[in-house]
């Protein structure tokens, strides 16, 4: 039998070597492709098997530990013995990596659903089980997504004393780490955490601003800091963010500064400032808006006309009329809307023409 295979191999080898070089290369490629297909098939089967196995295991453990955790947090002070038993079970379980992941995720999820005493109780349990150490270890990781995971866990469990560590990440080169650090500052230190805006050297994306505002809206019983220092920041993104805060917290007393920002060097700031003036309906801004209109780019002109639509009275009809033949159809359309709202008959006539 061995001789048969040996001969077969020798024949195959001699036939192969007789082929032109190009065909030899192509057949090597074919063999590589074939190996890749088989590997992909085996890998796919393994993934499916592992997924099914882990899914089942995860489900069983989740049910088991969820029950234990719920029992633990709802047991009264008198039921100390039962509490101790459950605690010991959990303490033993966290030594196993798979079980620890499940318990950690469950505590974090339950914590997200609870508030007040029960949430504090879970924070204490997280600490007692030593899970904080694992989170801090993740936070120190050099891999960005593990680091973010650690930051998230530490933040949710309200671990104080990470201020310095987080502040160091505020100007990190990795945008995602930077963003996470900013959110952590606000989550853990509330308005005090906004101090990062003083030293921020990078832009804040619109998305990140929305995330920060979501966190800021959750702040209770704290006095809003003075926003003017950020409205005067050298970082145009900080100014834009501060403008959002001005709007969110109705800081109309900053109007003088808002009007000045209409002439800011940054287009983004100018446009945002116009939007806030429109929101507050600051009548005093009409003159400057009309003044800067002709010097502005088309995009900013649209912001100006949109703001004037909110602020306009009969004195603006003439201004709107001058815009009816604007090269930008959006400006013309808004001007028409403005005239129609101030002088309906006139607009109908124009429209018909």
């Amino acid at each position: 039998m061995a001789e048969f295979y040996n001969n077969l191999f020798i024949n195959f080898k001699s036939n192969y070597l007789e082929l032109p070089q190009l065909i030899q290369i192509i057949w090597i490629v074919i063999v590589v492709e074939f190996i890749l297909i088989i590997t992909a098939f085996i890998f796919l089967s393994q993934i499916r098997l592992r997924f099914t196995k882990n899914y089942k295991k995860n489900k069983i453990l989740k049910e088991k530990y969820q029950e234990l955790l719920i029992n633990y947090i709802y047991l009264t002070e008198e039921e100390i013995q039962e509490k101790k038993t459950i605690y010991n079970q959990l303490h033993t379980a966290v030594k196993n990596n798979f079980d620890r992941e499940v318990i950690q995720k469950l505590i974090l999820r339950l914590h997200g659903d609870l508030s007040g005493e029960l949430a504090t109780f879970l924070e204490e349990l997280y600490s007692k089980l030593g899970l904080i150490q694992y989170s801090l270890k993740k936070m120190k990781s050099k891999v960005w997504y593990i680091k973010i995971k650690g930051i998230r866990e530490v933040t949710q469990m309200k671990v104080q004393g990470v201020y310095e560590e987080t502040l160091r990440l505020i100007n990190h080169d990795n945008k995602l780490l930077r963003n996470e650090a900013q959110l952590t500052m606000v989550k853990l230190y509330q308005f005090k955490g906004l101090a990062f805006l003083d030293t921020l050297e990078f832009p804040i994306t619109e998305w990140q601003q929305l995330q920060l505002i979501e966190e800021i809206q959750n702040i209770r019983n704290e006095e809003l800091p003075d926003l003017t220092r950020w409205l005067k920041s050298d970082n145009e993104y900080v100014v834009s963010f501060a403008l959002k805060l001005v709007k969110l917290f109705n800081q109309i007393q900053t109007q003088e500064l808002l009007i000045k920002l209409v002439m800011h060097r940054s287009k983004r700031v100018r446009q945002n400032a116009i939007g806030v003036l429109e929101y507050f309906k600051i009548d005093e801004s009409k003159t400057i808006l009309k003044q800067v209109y002709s010097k502005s780019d088309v995009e900013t002109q649209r912001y100006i006309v949109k703001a004037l639509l909110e602020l306009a009275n009969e004195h603006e009809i003439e201004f709107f009329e001058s815009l009816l033949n604007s090269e930008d159809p959006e400006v013309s359309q808004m001007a028409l809307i403005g005239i129609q709202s101030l002088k309906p008959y006139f607009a109908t006539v124009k429209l018909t023409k």
Partner: protein
Amino acid sequence: MDSNDFVLQFFYYFFLIFSAIIISSYIILGIISTFETIFYFRKNSFISYKSILASPFAPSISILAPCYNEGLNIVANVRSLMSLHYVNYQVIIINDGSKDDSLEKLIKQYNLEKVDIPFIAKIETKPIRGVYKSQNAVFEKLLVIDKENGGKADALNAGINYSNSEYLACIDVDCMLTEDALQKMVKPFLERTDRKVIATGGVIRIANNCKIENGKLMQVNMPKKLIERYQILEYLRSFLLGRMAWSRLNGLLIISGAFGMFDRRIMIDAGGYDTKTVGEDMEIIVRMRKYMRDNNRKYKIAYIPDPLCWTEAPDNFTILQSQRNRWTRGTIETLRKHWRLFMNPKYGYLGLLSYPYWLVYERLAPIIEIIGLLFLGYLYLIDALNWIYALSFIVVAYFFSIAFSMAAILSEELTYRQYNKKGDALKLIFVALIEPVTFHLFTLYAAIRGNFTFYFQKQKSWGTMVRKGIGKV
């Protein structure tokens, strides 16, 4: 060497180099896609969309959905569009001169009344017959435009004219969007500060045989028909391996007409949709990119791999052939219209990479492949066919096709796992094994028919798509 030998040698090396480049480019695109998908997954595992759900600063979005003879499903489709999870959006349905009762159904169901909205056309369209808004505050988000028939592009342009939102989500009205679709699609626009994101494309998934209740996707099922499964595999390859990589290279030339989001102002400044092409979805992207380059503005076309849009795929070869015929004509029209981009260094990646790639490997590939097959036939007839050469080429191409499909299936399995029932993966693998010698030949035929229609038929139609309605399992 006589002239006959020279011709043979030329063809021989031409096909060899062409195949080598196409295989290498697929491998490179596959690798880039893999890295990009991994990064996208890791990045988005931390993202909370809660912040944009009810934010007073959430940017405004208009969903533009053209409708032509969609009376069968229009009411349910609109209901589905109005129940998306986003705070600041409106739904603009553009009735493009439907001959059925689409408009009447909308008027009745949503208590619509004709309104007068001051309006200056930013893009020229066919005449507007009327604009309708609901008298019921519950449907405040809905605006219906009734216009004379002008085709999909014209209807979308009418919608653009009436929109005041920052972003436009242009969709096919029969598509089903997942509830979080707008939050996810708008995110790339808000994430960049170094350049302007002008459009975002999403993955289109096939909804045939899926369970849908009240406009919501309840269960993903593998379609029963082979023709539908072929398309699933094809979409996985195209969206998960192809477009993801092109997005990374900022070289995307198309965003599917079924679902894409655009910066409204850039769209208007670029001139809106071209009504003279059947490939308006590709043409608008090329034009917007060209517009940005011409104005020296840094830009990006983003792409997200999440399965956000589900659509009904053709389930018979007649309709599929008509669809592919149209896609081919759309590609030809767009590339012809923008031929000045070809190898033009002024347009950077667009002119030097995306356009040439699209021209050679999308536009000309079917023709080259047919010539290759004819060449083999010719060699056989003149008894000059070297069987070992021919066989080697065919086997390498066949195995490569399977390997690429396997990579797409694996990518899906490691990321979204939409087809997670027992046996689903095996069904897809089976399709991967037979597709190169069955479905691929059909798509080749449809592409050649598309070329024929473009060059030799005067009457060029959009093609018909008979809807059964998604979710009718």
